[in-house]
Structure formats: C-alpha cells, structure tokens
C-alpha cells in the first residue's frame, strides 16, 4: 500500500514540477506548484512527518500560493514570457547542467549504504516532538526566523507602496486621451464634488 502511494505521489510531484517550468501562463505554473506541494506533503506523511506535512499545506498552499496568485492577477498578461524564448545553446547548457546535478546526486545516493532506518515511537513527527526541539535546541533559529519574517513584511510594504501614480491635470488628459475623455473626467469629478457638498457627513 505504502509503495503504491509513494510512486503515485512521486509521479504527480514530478509531472507538476514539469508543468511549473514548462507552462507559458503563470497561473498554470502556480497551480502546478500547488499540485507539487500537495504531492510532497503526501510523501512527508509517508515519512511520518505529520506536522511538517500539515505546515507545508497550510504555509505554502494557504499563504504563499494566495500571494502568488494575487500578484499574478495584478500583473496580468505582462508576466507571460514563454519558455521558448531562450537561444538554443542556452537551453542545451541549462538542460546539461540540470542533468549533471541529477546524475551526480543519484550516483551518490545509490552507491551509499545508509543502513536500516531508525525505529521511531508514536510521538515522532507530531507537533509535540517538533515543538519541543524548536524551543529547546533550536531557540536561536526560531527567533531568527521570526526576525527575518518581520523584516520581510516591512520590506514588502516598502516595495509594494512605491511612488504614487500621478494625478493628471485636465490639460494633460486632453493631450494624452483626447478632448472627450478630458470632459468626461472633469464632469465626473464635478459630480463627486457636488455630492460631497450635499452630504457633508458621509465619508467617500
């Protein structure tokens, strides 16, 4: 049973990873990453790392993927550059580099004797065991991650805020969009002003 689940999850993980790197549309790539994450969480469950598998689904699928999809939707079709836009020699070099890394790791992995896996008790991989290790042996790493996450949040706000889009004057709109558009914008602005004066208590 475990063998069937392993090969199914491994197959799905590899297929979805291929979808991530080969699709032109970033939405499809992001959905491929989602499939990859869920397959890897299944593999982690087979390795009796329940807490890490749950955190994987919650942190990646819940938080990171939502952010990715939001930014992909915000950027729109400008983010689409297909995989076929590289020169042929670049493609060949990249594939050769990937294959070399793969062959190297696979050779080492299959020629090493790792011995028998350790026997583990019921608590292994649960929130208790992992949390215990986190707040005793790895307290510094725990605090470091929290500081880095805080810095990243501040950096994200600063980067995302950026310069405000300039508000064009009526003359500039007329030069850029034509007279009809300038009249329409001036009229809508006047209507908003009038409505604001009529109901001063209402916040718009």
């Amino acid at each position: 049973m475990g063998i069937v689940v392993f090969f199914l999850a491994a197959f799905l993980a590899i297929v979805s990873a291929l979808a991530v790197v080969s699709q032109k549309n970033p939405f499809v790539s992001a959905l491929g990453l989602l499939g990859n994450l869920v397959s890897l969480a299944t593999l982690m469950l087979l390795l009796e790392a329940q807490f890490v598998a749950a955190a994987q689904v919650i942190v990646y699928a819940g938080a990171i993927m939502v952010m990715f999809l939001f930014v992909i939707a915000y950027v729109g079709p400008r983010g689409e550059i297909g995989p076929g836009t590289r020169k042929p020699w670049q493609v060949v070099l990249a594939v050769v580099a990937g294959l070399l890394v793969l062959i190297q790791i696979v050779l080492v992995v299959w020629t090493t004797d790792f011995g028998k896996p350790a026997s583990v008790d019921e608590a292994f991989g649960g929130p208790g065991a992992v949390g215990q290790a986190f707040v005793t042996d790895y307290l510094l790493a725990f605090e470091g991650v929290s500081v880095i996450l805080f810095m990243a949040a501040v950096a994200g706000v600063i980067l995302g805020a950026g310069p405000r889009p300039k508000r064009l004057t009526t003359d500039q709109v007329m030069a850029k969009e034509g007279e009809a558009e300038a009249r329409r914008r001036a009229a809508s602005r006047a209507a908003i002003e009038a409505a604001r004066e009529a109901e001063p208590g209402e916040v718009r």
Partner: protein
Amino acid sequence: MSVGLPFYLSVSAILFAIGLVGVLLRRSPLTTLLSLEVMLNSVNLTLVAFSRQVGGSDGQVFALVVMGIAAAEVVVGLGLVVAMTRREMVLDTDELRSLSG
C-alpha cells in the same frame, strides 16, 4: 518505511534538477520564483527523509525553518515584481541589467 531512503532522495534530486532548469531557462521573474519554490521544496523532502532515517526531529525543524525563509523570500520577490509593474518596467529578467558590468 515501505520504500527505502534512496527512493525519496532520488525523487528529491529529480525535482531539484527540474527546478534548476526552470530557474536557468525562464525569463519571467514570476516563473523564476515558482521554480525556486520547487527547488526549496525538494530540499525539504530530503531533510524530512533523513530525519526519518536518523530518527530525530532535527531535520524536521530545519525543514520548517526553510519554509519560513521561503515565505520571506517570496514576499520580497513578489514585492519587487509589484514595484516593477508600478514603474511600468518590462517583466523580463534579461532586461534588468543596469548593474551588469
């Protein structure tokens, strides 16, 4: 464990190589970040597999730290993509070469 450690490490190596090819080949910063996530996840699988083999929680703690760092990295990367979009720059990593010598 029904399947041995080398199987898990091989799957992880395949995913790492796929992600590496993606990072090298894709020109859109969004897809480059997605390929990077594939690489980070494959390393997470390696850490969890070794943690099971050794029988300690250390590898799992490391995997959770990697997840936190990946979240931070994605925030900064996507912030850069949003900033580039707001400045109406082309979303192409090959065009970002004002720092190249």
